[in-house]
């Protein structure tokens, strides 16, 4: 994935009808979701990685110790082979789910909540608030993302908490821009005008009327940021930052082992499958939810 940062991944032009906030429809939606194989498989993949991240220590996997020859190809003892230090790749891929699931989802969540709220507020109030916010975001967007990343890592370090914060700061402006655009579209619709005429409170219009209608756009942005966030560690590691060996982080593993691609493909391919499965599953879940809620 290129875009280390999906600066503003896309001013989504997905059109959504006003979502009726009808509780009665929900069970049927869930039922129709469960009938979709791509949704079920994706959920199972995510569940598997969550279980892996929580449970690898319990089953006694050893991702850091030398348990085999150097760069041994996959066999029964090491189903994913071993790396250049003789560590079991299976154990490392399973243990690597932890950092990926922390930084990716939490970072994306932070970015989505912050960016979404600010975008909504800017689009709703417009005027000076809007101008000020959007120009402030422009400042962040105008800084080349990797340069900004280098600086942020210099300031906050590369602990998991710092990475979550960094993902939040990096991705929020792009999301805010898109949500603002989506809010502007919604503002022209009759249900907002009606709510305003009825004298509803701003907070209620923002979060009870507008938010549900913008939610699908927000979900797409969240999944796109998720993918990019999982990638942050790989890009940082490529830049010579963010290396904290012997961590089993997928991005780190892919960059460190890529030089063995010709001799020991398994050291690159399995962590890459880890990343890809997480990214694809998250996107398919989002797709399905969007299609069902249409």
């Amino acid at each position: 994935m290129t875009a280390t940062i999906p600066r503003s991944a896309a001013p989504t032009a997905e059109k959504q009808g006003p979502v009726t906030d009808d509780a009665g429809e929900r069970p049927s939606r869930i039922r129709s979701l469960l009938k979709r194989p791509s949704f079920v498989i994706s959920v199972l993949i995510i569940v598997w990685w969550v279980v892996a991240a929580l449970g690898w220590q319990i089953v006694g996997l050893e991702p850091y110790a030398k348990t085999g020859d150097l760069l041994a190809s996959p066999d029964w003892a090491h189903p994913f082979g071993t790396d250049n230090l003789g560590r079991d790749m299976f154990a490392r891929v399973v243990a690597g789910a932890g950092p990926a699931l922390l930084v990716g989802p939490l970072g994306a969540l932070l970015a989505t909540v912050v960016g979404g709220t600010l975008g909504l507020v800017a689009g709703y109030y417009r005027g000076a608030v809007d101008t000020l916010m959007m120009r402030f975001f422009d400042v962040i967007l105008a800084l080349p993302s990797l340069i900004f990343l280098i600086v942020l890592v210099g300031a906050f370090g590369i602990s998991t908490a710092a990475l979550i914060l960094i993902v939040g700061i990096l991705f929020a402006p792009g999301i805010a821009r898109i949500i603002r655009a989506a809010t502007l579209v919604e503002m022209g619709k009759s249900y907002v005008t009606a709510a305003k005429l009825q004298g509803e409170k701003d907070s209620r219009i923002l979060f009870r009327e507008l938010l549900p209608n913008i939610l699908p756009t927000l979900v797409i942005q969240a999944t796109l940021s998720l993918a990019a966030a999982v990638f942050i560690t790989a890009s940082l590691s490529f830049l010579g930052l963010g290396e904290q060996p012997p961590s089993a982080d997928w991005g780190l593993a892919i960059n460190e082992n890529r030089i063995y691609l010709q001799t020991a493909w398994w050291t690159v391919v399995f962590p890459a499958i880890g990343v890809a499965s997480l990214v694809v599953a998250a996107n398919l879940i989002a797709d399905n939810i969007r299609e069902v809620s249409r």
Partner: protein
Amino acid sequence: MTTTSVERRTALLGLLGKRVVQIPVVLLVVSILTFWLLQVVPGNPGRNALGQYATAAQVTAWNHDNGVDGSLVTQYLHWIGGFFVGDWGQSLVYSTPVRELVLERLGNSLLLGLYAFVIMVPVAIALGSAQAYREGKRSDRAITVGLLSLSAIPEFVVGVVLLLVFAVWLRVVPVQSAAGASGDFFDRLRVMTLPAVVLALGYLAVLTRMVRSGTSEAITSQFHRTAVIKGLSSATIVRRHVIRNALVPTLSVLGIYLGTLLGGSVIVETLFSYPGLGALMVTAADRKDVLLLESGVMITGAVSLLALLFTDICFVLMDPRIRFNARETN
């Protein structure tokens, strides 16, 4: 229709007028922020130049000789004063005038970015619209999964695989794509093909998704249905309605990515040793070459902001759903 176009023209003029004032202000803030933020990046230019075995006194002397001591404010004012009159200073890292360096690399980056665009856009439109016509079907899912998986593989792995195939096994391109930067145009394009393809692949998934949703929206819309009922040939429908509607989101994404391509292609530039602006700026940040970084940031910042403006203009001109008025477009 006429009222709309009048509205749009006013909106457009208002938008442009405001941005002409705002963009320089934003850039000024960016430049101050960069100057200040660079201080937290670990490292010292003198240490970088003289190596780990030079003494602290030697490092201090080097910094003094090269004008990187003294207060930040003085350094900044000195730089910005020079920048406005075209004197962008001397790079600490490359010992050459910053202006020549940055402008030359900007040209290289633009060329690579454009090449990637030319590869990416037709593919994305073809794939995305094909998907839209098969929405929800297995082939649609398969393309989504395939593209997403591809975009989930880091550029430096995709790049290495392509280099292995085309440079090592088939030997049709060199590993160092800088070699073409001085050759004739077609030779240059040949050498740039791999980096451009890798760059394009990274953005392909997102772009295809945009085309897919734009198209699917267009073909489920009222006027599409009307057109079908009217009995227009499907080719005409695609030409008149679908492509136009699919292009709306696509164009705005392109605008945004133009900015990103300049600052964000560091990995591709590094792997293929392509002399672009992204890698230059990472080196500048890493080696704390503040003058080089500042000028680079100003240039890419300006390009990014213009690209964002372009996006907003596209939005005003092409999106039929927004009835902009001047007040809303800031």
